[in-house]
């Protein structure tokens, strides 16, 4: 469903995710990755409770550091992508506390890299994967469009 979406809020969210994930890796602080997973899971379930959205609206917007960029968009895919990010981060945190450091940090950094690629290059990794799976015949067209 098309609605009004602040694209700068989405970009701020993505940059925040990348920064916190990278900081967790640099500081070798798995708990931070786990906390980020919880923050994203909450934001996915209840967007109004999003921590980064709150920071954007209460701290970043008032002084004019960023200005809203309101466009027609669909919120659902962004929430879905955030949910996927939360899942990867949770998986990474579980791997880290289980002693699988390489796998855990790989999952955490994957979230950071994909978020930054989207911000910097406008490249939707989810779209890429979906398109390739569909070309490979692993995803069928919706019945209504066949």
């Amino acid at each position, binding site marked *: 469903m098309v609605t009004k979406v602040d694209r700068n809020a989405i970009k701020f969210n993505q940059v925040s995710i990348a920064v916190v994930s990278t900081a967790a890796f640099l500081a070798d602080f798995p708990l931070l990755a786990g906390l980020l997973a919880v923050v994203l899971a909450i934001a996915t379930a209840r967007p109004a409770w999003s921590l980064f959205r709150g920071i954007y609206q209460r701290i970043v917007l008032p002084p004019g550091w960023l200005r809203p960029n309101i466009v027609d968009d669909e919120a659902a*895919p962004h929430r879905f992508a955030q949910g996927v990010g939360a899942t990867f981060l949770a998986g990474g945190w579980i791997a880290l506390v289980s002693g699988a450091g390489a796998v855990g940090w790989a999952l955490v950094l994957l979230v950071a890299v994909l978020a930054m690629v989207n911000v910097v290059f406008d490249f939707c990794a989810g779209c890429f994967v979906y398109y390739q799976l569909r070309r490979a015949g692993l995803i069928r067209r919706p019945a209504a469009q066949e």
Partner: protein
Amino acid sequence: MADRLLVLVLIAAGVAALRLLLRWRSARYRVRSAADLVPRGRPRPVVLAFSTPDCVPCRTQQKPALQELLRRYPERVEVRDVDAAEQPGLADRFGIMTVPSTVVIDPRGRIVAINHGVTRWERLAAQLSLNGVRPPARVRSQGA
């Protein structure tokens, strides 16, 4: 800490290398002719806009950018929507790897650029030299 910084540098280098690889791949497809896709009676640039019905960025980001391009340069460019899932042959012809993607073809049928991902109207106009801004000679394709 130093080893972790090194990992980050390597990841950044990897992303940059992937981007260069994609650019090189696009360049290989760009040497082919697309003269058959240029309108015959009145040759003008063509932008092929590859999308799929379920691609949200195609609808919410790429389509408005293409509409803005047409609004600013009516009669000077033609935009054709292509369902990449319906026409896989055409998508393969240009090495389309994701949607949205745009293929920019000049009036002589030369492929000027193959853009993977959302491309803003300003960039498309520059690739077609419509806005007086000529793109750098070697930087005419983008992607991750």
